[in-house]
């Protein structure tokens, strides 16, 4: 039987790279990413599941990393904001859209928006502005007033559309291209 102070082995991939970690069971995924793996792109805001800043993708689905125990994710594939870049390490399409539309000011909430929107556009590739607003309703931003974020969701959909002119950059869901 495990004792309360014993660490537990957990194996998962983060942005395509496998990790075997021995963690205290109470370690939240948000803290495991930031403290143990030094992936500080995932931001911790409210730490009780309200603000959405810590959203990461678990097996492709957005989830609050502050509402997950890292040890519970044995065998999962996790994608953080660091894995949402383009294959050459530049900005991914959602990041590019946020940049173009001025969809951030202080930037604290942005990683949570980018991961949420990245997953959303996989299932809804051409949202209306209304649907885009609904899609981001679980993420709080205190700077922008959301107008430009809604615009960025629609712009990201344009960038991701197969027929779009210019260079097409696919989001790195697992970041596995480098391995």
């Amino acid at each position: 039987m495990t004792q309360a102070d014993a660490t537990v082995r957990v194996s998962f991939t983060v942005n395509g790279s496998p990790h075997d970690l021995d963690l205290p069971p109470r370690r939240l995924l948000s803290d495991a990413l930031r403290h143990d793996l030094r992936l500080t792109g995932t931001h911790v805001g409210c730490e009780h599941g309200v603000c959405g800043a810590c959203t990461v993708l678990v097996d492709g689905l957005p989830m609050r990393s502050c509402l997950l125990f890292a040890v519970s994710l044995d065998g999962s594939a996790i994608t953080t904001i660091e894995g949402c870049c383009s294959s050459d390490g530049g900005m991914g399409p959602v990041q590019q859209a946020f940049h173009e539309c001025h969809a951030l000011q202080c930037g604290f909430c942005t990683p949570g928006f980018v991961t949420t929107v990245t997953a959303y556009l996989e299932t809804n590739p051409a949202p209306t502005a209304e649907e885009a607003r609904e899609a981001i309703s679980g993420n709080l931003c205190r700077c922008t007033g959301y107008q430009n974020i809604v615009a960025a969701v629609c712009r990201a959909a344009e960038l991701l559309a197969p027929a779009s002119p210019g260079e097409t950059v696919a989001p790195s869901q697992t970041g596995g291209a480098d391995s």
Partner: protein
Amino acid sequence: MKPAPFAYHRPRTLEETLDVLADLGEDGKVLAGGQSLVPLMSMRLSAPPHIVDVNHLPGLGTVEVDAAAIRVGALARHSEVEHHQAAYDAVPLLRQALRLVAHPTIRNRGTTVGSLVHGDPAAELPAVLLLLDGSVSLLSATGPRDVEASAFFTGPMETALRAGELAVAATFRRPPPGSGTAFVEVARRHGDYAMCGVGAVVSMGTAPDEILSARVALVSMGSGPVLVDLDEALEGESLDEETVRTLVDSAVDPETDIHASADYRRHLAHVLVRRAVDEARRNARGRAA
């Protein structure tokens, strides 16, 4: 904002899980989606000494639809139930209510059965289980038992689940053919707990617009979901508003808190019961067409 230390168990089979839960008794707490449990632990409102993580058990993530009911397994996430087309076709009320449960990100992890076991008086799913005459299947090292919804919710955050038991599934019965359902609520913020929420099931007769029965279940209006049978108010094609008010008023017992006064909650209950019943009637006509 960090949970207190706990011992962690990651059983891989149902038998192992039930053995661990039997050994731990009152000290063991089951972790499924954790979308209510983890914040409670982070805020130190709850500090279970042992966590039994059931996320790695096989075969519990199913949603089964048959002629009589929908059976939702313990590891079926809210989003899986919400988007299950056969489940929606059989019982639209599930999706109607699930859309109001927090945000999609939370629904990707949180489980439908977990929400029932959590027993929050502000939660939508306990009201749905009551409205659909559902039940919860419990399993322990000593055997299985089923508890009807009417006996399952015993108080705020309290259910009939005993120490050593695992809730393995919930069964939502199909309403009679010709029924319509709806779930409406008013919350301070999108996705937040409702100040008042109402689910409705209205059964229509063969004559156009004839209502055979109507019942509603209210959330955030008492120590648990409050079921109100409106049959007494039936007048052929409509419901007598005064009687509905009286029936609702005598069933609910709202509290004043930072979000709303008890009086305002009563007001919301009257308005939302009317809206939910009207919407359920419209949906019944839409399904019959």
